[in-house]
C-alpha cells in the first residue's frame, strides 16, 4: 500500500473529524473505496491551474442586502415539537460541562 492515496489511519482520523464511527470492516472498505476515488481524481494533476482563479459563484451575483426589519419567526412550540428532547422552552442536550458539587 505504499502508493495509497489515503491510509486506514487517515480514514479513522477523518471519521473522527466528521463525527462518524466506522467498524473495522467499514473502515477497511471505506479506505479502499476512497483510495480508488482519489486515485481517479489524481487525473487533475495533469492540469496546471496555478494561474486560474477558483470559481466561487458559477453565476456572477452581488451579495444582496435586505432591510433590517423584524419579522415573525417560527412558532416555538411547533419548532420544539421536532426536537428529540426539550425542556423549559429549549432544546435539551446531554451534559456539556462537568460541575463540581
Amino acid at each position, binding site marked *: 500500500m505504499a502508493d495509497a492515496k489515503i491510509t486506514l489511519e487517515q480514514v479513522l482520523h477523518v*471519521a473522527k*473529524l466528521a463525527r462518524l*464511527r466506522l467498524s473495522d470492516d467499514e473502515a477497511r472498505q471505506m479506505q479502499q473505496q476512497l483510495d480508488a476515488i482519489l486515485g481517479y481524481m489524481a487525473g*487533475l494533476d495533469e492540469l496546471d491551474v496555478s494561474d486560474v482563479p477558483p470559481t466561487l459563484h458559477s*453565476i456572477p451575483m452581488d451579495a444582496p442586502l435586505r432591510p433590517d426589519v423584524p419579522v415573525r419567526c*417560527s412558532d416555538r412550540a411547533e419548532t420544539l415539537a*421536532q426536537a428529540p428532547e426539550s425542556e423549559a422552552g429549549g432544546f435539551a442536550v446531554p451534559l*456539556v460541562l462537568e460541575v463540581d458539587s
Partner: protein
Amino acid sequence: MSFPWQSAIEIREQVQTGAVSAVDVARAHLDRAETLNPTLACFLTIDHEGALAAAAQVDRAQKAGETLGPLAGVPVAVKDNLCTRGVRTTCASKILGDYIPPYDAHVVEALRASGAVILGKTNLDEFAMGSSNENSAFGNVANPWALDRAPGGSSGGSACATAAGIVPIALGSDTGGSVRQPAAFCGITAIKPTYGRVSRYGLVAFASSLDQVGPMARSVREAAALLEIVAGHDRRDATSADREVGTYRAACDRGVKGLRVGVVRDLVDGLQDDDVRRAAQASLAALEKEGATLVDVALPHAKHAVSVYYLIATAEASSNLARFDGIRYGLRVPGQDLTETYTNTRARGFGPEVRRRIMLGTYALSAGYYDAFYLKAQRVRTLIRRDYDTAFEQCDVVCTPTTPTPAFALGEKTDDPLEMYLADIFTLPPSLAGLPAISTPCGKSSNGLPIGLQLVAPPFEEERLCSVAQAVEDACGLVGERPPAIG
C-alpha cells in the same frame, strides 16, 4: 375517462370549465398511486387528506366563479427533500425519518398558490446523493419501463411517478444531474434551471453552490408550465436571481429556425453505446431538418467534471450535513456525552453513500489537503465554465446525450461507487457552470428503454431550451407512449 394519463394542461382546462371536479381528479390519481406504489416504491408518503382538501378548495373556488390558478386541480408529486409544512419530509434518510417541517419550501408555496394538488412526497437517494435511487433508506424505486432497471437518481421517485401516469408533473432537485438523469432513464422531460432561477428556500441543502429545484413532466410544454410557476425571486434565498421569469410555455412554439446547435462531436460520436449514439445523431438530424444549424463545439475540460464535482459537492455536503447532530430535530441516539451523542446519531442515521461523501468532503477540506483537492477543483471548475463561454460564441445551445447508456440494471453499480459516479459525466459539466439544461426523450434503445438528449444554454436562457426540446419531442419524443411494465 382516463384521468391518470391526461396532461396537466388538459386537467386544468377541464377543472376550470367544470367538466370534471378537482376532487374526482385527485381521487383517480390517489387510487393509481396506491395501486402502483407497492410495485414501484416511488412515494414515501401519499397525502390523501392534504390532496383531497386542496382539491376541494379548488372546486369551491370554481363553483364561486373565480378564475382558478394556472395549475388548479393538477396533481403534483414533490421530492421528499422539499419541506412541506405538516407533512413528513425524510430526505429518504433515517436521520429525518419522522421529521415534520414547520414551514413550506418556496416552491411548495408556489405550487399551493397555483392551485396544484400535492399528492405526496417522492422517494430519492438519501439526501439526493446518488444516481440510481438505490441509496434510499426506505427501498428501491423501480423503472416503469423495466422493473429490474434503475429509475435513475436522485429524483427517481418523481421521475417514476410521472412516467407511470400517477402524476402529470413533479418537482425534483438537481445538483449534478438529479432531475435530468432519471428523466432520461424514465422517458420524461426535466429542466435543471440556471443556478439562482428557482429559490432553494426549504430545499434541504446538499451542495449549496450547485443545488436547484427542477420541473419534471411527460412533455416539454408541461415542464415549461411548471417552471413558470416555481421560478422567480425570493429574498429568503440569498442566491435567488432578481430577474423576470421567462415565457417558457410560449417558447415551445418558437421553433428552431436559425438556431445554432453546438454538437460536442467527440462526446456524441465517441459514445460506446450504439443505441444512444444513433438516437442522438437522429435527433440532431431532425433539428437540422427543422431549420437549425449544427456546428461542432468542444468542451476540452468536461472529462475532468467527475473529479471536480465529487470534490466540490462532497466538500459542501460535509459542511451542510454537519447540522444533523441529533439536537434540534430528527433522530437522536444518546451517548455518554455530547460528542458521543453526535457520533452515535450520525453513525446510525446516515447510510453508506452519505457517509462516504461526508468522508470524502471532510478529507478534501482538511488541513494539508485543501489546496491540493478543494481549491484545485474550484480552479478546474473555472476551466469548465470557460469551455462553455467559448462554445456559446459559436452556438446557441450545446447538445450531448444526457447519459452514456440507457437505464442500467438495479444492483449493477452498487458495489463500485466510482463506476456509479462516472455515469454522471454528461450532466455534471453544466451543473458546475451553473447553466440551465434540459433532458428530453429522443428515442428508445433496441430493448425498449428510453434515451434522453441534453441541451444546455447560457445563463437564464431556459426559453431557448424549451424551443429546441419541443422540436426534439415533436420529431422523436415519447409523449403518449406508456411504459409496458405497468398497467
